[in-house]
């Protein structure tokens, strides 16, 4: 009985299937390619991982609350452009400029929330509009040519190297732990899940769903903006196309990590695993010398497999519960 409950609990975890696929790929490909499981390869993967994972983390939190954000790719560009303009053109201190860049991102999140909730427009549509508007803002405020990242800009505390790793990975770990704590251990976390699972029931329980969703929208945008700043500091350039198409990748990461499109399901850990799985898949395809024309097919197929497995494990967990009840 105890072991059955344990299995059920394990299978019920939203990130279980992606973790299983991840371990399967890790073990299989370690035998197939001797250059896969080495520190140099993981150094390459982990350099960009925090940026993608931060966006997926924000999307996951928002999806748990039952909403969606397609504008994260554009916010990913707006925030570093605002930051860099403030640093180069207005000579603001880097920290103040970053905070204002994140404020701009947060403001976009707030507008998304306002349009979605007050006008009762599906977030898919509201944030689709914002995707275009924010990208346009990124081009307009920079005149198409954002300022160059100054060579002497002190960015070590954000993207510097610590042996094989980038400092940004520690920022990700810290932020993910905070998000996990908030989601799992606080009242607000419970409200997020309740709002996503059944907003009307949540309202009846006295939860201010408008406030909950607004905070989730703002968090999602701020995390996307922060990720954009990290990336532009790492590659030492800001271009208006930063993050183009990132929204679909982030949503895919969240879904592969177990977040449900209908809301109420997901976890911070799942977002990290989902993003890592997609990064590993990308890496495996490159190392396997998969022909360029087949690349997107392979990524797409693996996403579908991951989600099918998610559904399968969830159904299996549900069946175990039914047997217990009998």
């Amino acid at each position, binding site marked *: 009985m105890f072991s059955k409950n344990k299995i059920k609990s394990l299978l019920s975890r939203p990130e279980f299937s992606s973790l299983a696929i991840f371990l399967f790929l890790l073990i299989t490909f370690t035998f197939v*390619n001797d*250059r*896969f499981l*080495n520190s*140099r*390869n993981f*150094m*390459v*993967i982990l*350099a*960009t991982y925090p*940026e993608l994972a931060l966006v997926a983390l924000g999307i996951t939190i928002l999806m748990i609350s039952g909403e969606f954000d397609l504008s994260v790719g554009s916010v990913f*560009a707006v925030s570093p452009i605002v930051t860099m303009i403030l640093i180069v053109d207005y000579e603001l201190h880097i920290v103040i400029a970053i905070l204002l860049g994140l404020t701009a991102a947060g403001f976009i999140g707030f507008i998304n929330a306002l349009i979605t909730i007050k006008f009762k427009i599906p977030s898919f549509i509201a944030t689709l509009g914002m995707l*275009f508007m924010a*990208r*346009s803002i*990124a*081009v307009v405020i920079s*005149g*198409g*040519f954002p300022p*160059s990242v100054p060579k002497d800009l002190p960015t070590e505390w954000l993207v510097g*190297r610590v042996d*094989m790793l980038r400092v940004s990975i520690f920022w990700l770990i810290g932020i993910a732990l905070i998000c996990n704590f908030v989601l799992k251990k606080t009242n607000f976390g419970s409200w997020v899940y309740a709002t996503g699972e059944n907003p009307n029931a949540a309202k009846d329980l006295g939860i201010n769903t408008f406030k909950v969703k607004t905070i989730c929208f703002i968090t999602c945008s701020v995390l996307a903006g922060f990720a954009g700043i990290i*990336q532009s500091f*790492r*590659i*030492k*350039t800001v*271009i*208006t*196309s*930063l*993050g*183009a*198409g*990132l929204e679909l990748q982030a949503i895919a990461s969240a879904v592969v990590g177990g977040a449900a499109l209908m809301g109420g399901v997901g976890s911070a850990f799942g977002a990290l695993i989902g993003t890592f799985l997609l990064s590993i898949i*990308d*890496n495996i395809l*490159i*190392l396997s*010398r*998969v*022909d*360029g*024309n087949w*690349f*997107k097919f392979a990524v797409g197929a693996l996403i579908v497999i991951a989600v099918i497995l998610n559904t399968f494990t969830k159904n299996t967990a549900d069946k175990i519960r039914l047997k217990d009840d009998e």
Partner: protein
Amino acid sequence: MNIMKLFLAMCTVVLISVPASAKYKFSVLTQVDTSNTFWQGIKRGMDDACEMLDVDCQLVFNQENGNLQMQLTNLEVLVEQGIDGISLVIVEDTMFDEAVQKAIDAGIPVITTNVDDSEGAEGNARLAFVGQDLYQAGYELAKELSKQFPEGDTHVLLGLSAPGQNWAELRIGGVRQFMEEYKVANPNKKVTWDTIDSGLDTSVTGQRICAYVQGHPETNAYFDAGFWGSGAGECLRDLGIKPGELLMAMFDLVDITMDEMDKGYVHLTIDQQPYLQGYLPILQMYLMKEFGLSAWDVNTGKALVFPSDVKNIRKYIDMGVR
């Protein structure tokens, strides 16, 4: 009431922003969206020509990057409106044939810019092409970089930024053509190459190049269909790869490419001079309308740029004209 006032104010802004004195109205149509850095250089050239000639110009970006049907619809609308001249990009060989023919039949001059029908004038009724010979540019890029290939076997990675789009296929096709010839010309060397979908994002492309190179350390050189490969500099340094250990060649002049040339990680690029691709079609269309002159082809993309050229070129990049 307030919404009505806002609407009227917006209409007023739109109306006063259109120069009333403009004799001609020209439009430039692209398949990319506003975020494309390269196209800002074309826009700068177009804006300067339009200001100088006092004509009314509009660069019509796509709402969705690469959506050719959207671009075709924009073209058809402009032809119906009876615009005075159209400059456009053709990245697909048959889709625009009918609409361009219709424009020409209606007396609207059409000049392709940046990317042309792969069959040139035989494949489309457009009057001239201002841009780079993409296939030839890829060939020249590979030919020039091959002078730096090390002794012994050669393994090359080709970054096909956008599989299926003819600009990327043509450029990498040109590189491949040279590699075939190089292989035949060097029978004692083992010459091999792989092609990956390198992507259209600096960070993604950089990561894919580094993942490949660390997995295949025999790689000597990398060719990118665009400029995105410059994003590999950071992770190559992370991997401890020294400048020159991996030869890299790409297209276009952007900030990050110049920086990596300074650092020794990008060894060659081809400047297709986007400013001219915006400027010259407007000038040609003006001359055609004003003096009945005919259009002429211009190959804007022969300029090979080496790291030693960066210092002189950078000031023009900062001005947004190169």
